[in-house]
């Protein structure tokens, strides 16, 4: 049995009061609930305050480039499909620099879980607008206020028939633990967008702001109803729905690739007779 101690205790580089702390705790609790030992899990992250999170627990980790965690996670999962791969990064990393990979990963439906620390701001670089910053928010880089329509990650994910799409809030830890657990258990691409207050740079979307708005989906909500999901995913205002917004059972990438139908690629022998055949075709 895995327990919380297995996840270690590290000093963080985060600001006191940051929403990243409860997210870290929730992740540790989820790993315990999932009974995953540190060596069974591979975290992959990008660059940003959020992306440091996996350094603060015990697990395998590939902390790659800003915006490029998803391709690295995809490659690692292909190399060893037995790994539980969790990709954890910030909104800027995942939806900004990494936007194209976000689209592709959804479409690929490979069995990785993506946890986005969505603080609606670029934290580590000191407070520029991120793709999810609300319209009108003023920053040093946007002194006239943001004029772009915010990116709607959940709506886009549902529009592209992502396998599993959920939203949670760092201030509701039990809910968050449940979402992470469900996302990891889902076979295929899973997205959990987590609203996370940044106390240093986001003075608009604060803990209280989120707290007031986040509202759990009712029990009778049917996350397999795509039309409903699309509407629900697009809700963002006085009420922000949290929970599993959409899911389906599209086959996962690794279940559709011949070479992945056996054991993992890592360590598998190279078939020398097949190679001889390949060469012979050039005669």
């Amino acid at each position, binding site marked *: 049995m895995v327990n919380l101690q297995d996840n270690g205790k590290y000093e963080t580089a985060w600001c006191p009061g940051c929403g990243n702390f409860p997210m870290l705790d929730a992740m540790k609790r989820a790993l315990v609930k999932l009974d995953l030992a540190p060596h069974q899990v591979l975290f992959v992250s990008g660059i940003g305050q959020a992306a440091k999170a996996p350094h603060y627990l015990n697990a395998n980790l590939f902390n790659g*480039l800003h915006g490029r965690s998803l391709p690295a996670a995809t490659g690692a999962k292909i190399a060893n499909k037995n790994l539980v791969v969790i990709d954890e990064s910030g909104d800027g990393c995942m939806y900004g620099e990494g936007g194209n990979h976000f689209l*592709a990963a959804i479409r690929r439906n490979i069995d990785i879980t993506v946890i986005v620390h969505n603080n609606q701001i670029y934290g580590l670089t000191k407070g520029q607008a991120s793709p999810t910053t609300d319209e009108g928010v003023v920053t040093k880089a946007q002194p006239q206020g943001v004029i772009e329509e915010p990116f709607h990650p959940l709506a886009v994910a549902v529009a592209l028939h992502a396998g599993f799409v959920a939203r949670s809030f760092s201030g509701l830890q039990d809910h968050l633990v449940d979402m992470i657990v469900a996302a990891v258990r889902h076979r295929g691409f899973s997205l959990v967008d987590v609203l996370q207050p940044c106390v240093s740079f986001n003075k608009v979307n604060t803990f209280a702001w989120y707290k007031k708005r986040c509202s759990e989906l009712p029990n009778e909500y049917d996350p397999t109803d795509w039309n409903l999901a699309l509407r629900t995913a697009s809700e963002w205002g006085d009420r922000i729905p949290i929970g599993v917004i959409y899911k389906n059972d599209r086959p996962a990438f690794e279940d559709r690739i011949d070479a992945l139908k056996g054991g993992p690629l890592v360590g598998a022998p190279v078939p020398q007779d097949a190679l001889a055949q390949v060469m012979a075709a050039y005669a």
Partner: protein
Amino acid sequence: MSINACNILLGGEAGQGLVTVGNLLAKILVRHGYYIVVTESYQSRIRGGHNTFSIRVSADPITASQDKVDLLVALNAQTVTIDGGTLSDTGTIVTDEAFGVTCDRCLQAPYRQLASARYANTVALGLAASLLGLSQDICSEAVREAFGRKGPEVIEENLQALAGAYQWSAGKSTPCPGLPKISAPEKRLVMNGNDAIALGALSAGIKFYSFYPMTPSTSIGLVLAANAARMGMVVEQAEDEIAAINMAIGASFAGAPSMVSTSGGGFALMVEGVSLAAMTETPLVIAVGQRPAPATGLPTRTEQSDLEFVLHSGHGEFPRAIFAPGSVEDCFFLTRRAFEIAEHSQSPVFILFDQFLADSQRAVKPFDLAGLPPIEVGARPDGVKTPYRRFELTADGVSPRLFPGMGEHLVIADSDEHTEDGHITEDLSIRKAMVEKRLAKLEWIRSQATPPSFAGDESPDILLVTWGSTFGAALEAVETMRSRGRKAALLNFSQVWPLVPQQFMDKLKGAKEVVGVEGNATAQFARLIRRETGFEIARTILRYDGLPITPEWILREIK
């Protein structure tokens, strides 16, 4: 010319099936025991335009293409106009009488009478084969194999077109030098540079390959994709080149030997990833097929202008190795070698080739696969100290590499500067140690460097210095000069980084004149030699119009 060879050029527009019959003719020639060098010349379009497929053939080993054409086979009238000028003094042009072109040395064949327009390319193949005195049986067999999947009807019609062509040309012959009958032809493979890179990767034990299509390297991916299932590997077309390289790094980190391939513009998008591979000490093989640049340039032509770009790609300082195959065999063996060096030095390693070699089919002795085991990947967990530290500081800079999930150890890697156990750090003394650790690995890479090959006279009057695909043309040029009584030699680099001056300084210094021959406009390799050795290669022969350097080009420039 000292070499007895015949140069066949097929010309037509895209979509006429030129490459199909070019490939067939190449295969047929090799099955007769001949050596070949193919030069594919095509445009950036799918239909129309003007493409050529030239096959230089000889009973003796050859390494280069040739400008003058001995047998020009035209699939359209334009070919006669555009390529007629390249005909040698004794050459022949095969045309369709329906083209209505008149020319001195034209052999006017009635393509349309011999088969329907759909099979004009097969008619042309048959005419060429028959005029060259090739066996109709071998031709028919090759046609049967090629069209096997298209059903008996297609095969039959092609065979009839072939037969018609043979019949019509019976008794006719063209003077084509250097094609004596070979009674017991050795078994050889026909493959181009891309095929050989793909095979080399498979032989090394590649498990993951990701790519975004880009001429001239796309077919590496297609070959791997066609064989992925049976080879137990995964080929993934990525959303862009950035994804391609980051996927490959992720896969390699998790234990799958990995490669990406691309061309200059796609590689430009990968350079942040190159730096990531270096920082996380993840082995990675990167094949860059050069074509004329800047930017989109001439997508389907050849050039050698990305040497300095690849050598310095990626921010920061770290070791790497760059191989520059000069032949199809090199493509195979150096790709294997690239995987080995990448794995052992835990670094990015490059194969720097170009469109000419990528598309140039050659006759190749089958590789002795039994003697070529897959490379060993990673360290054995039981031989590793606990607690496991992925970036343990060692004397040679190489730390034992374990894979995540393959034991209870944890593997942690970071693109930030990191501690021995892989965690992010801002400790500046660790920074210093890690810089030195990473750079220390260059020593080992250097100790493994493939020395340049030398051919020709010791203490020559003229020494050509080449790298990559220019090798073949330069070798022949040197041989020709020598056959004319000039003391000449060639120094060819199939590894262009790191350079080890002790391996070649005596050759540079021992020559009266040193001439750099490169397919670019600024003599990049000559510059690199000067940087590394202080030796100035004062004279260079350069080509940058999109076509490969040929022996004639070199000889003309040298005078």
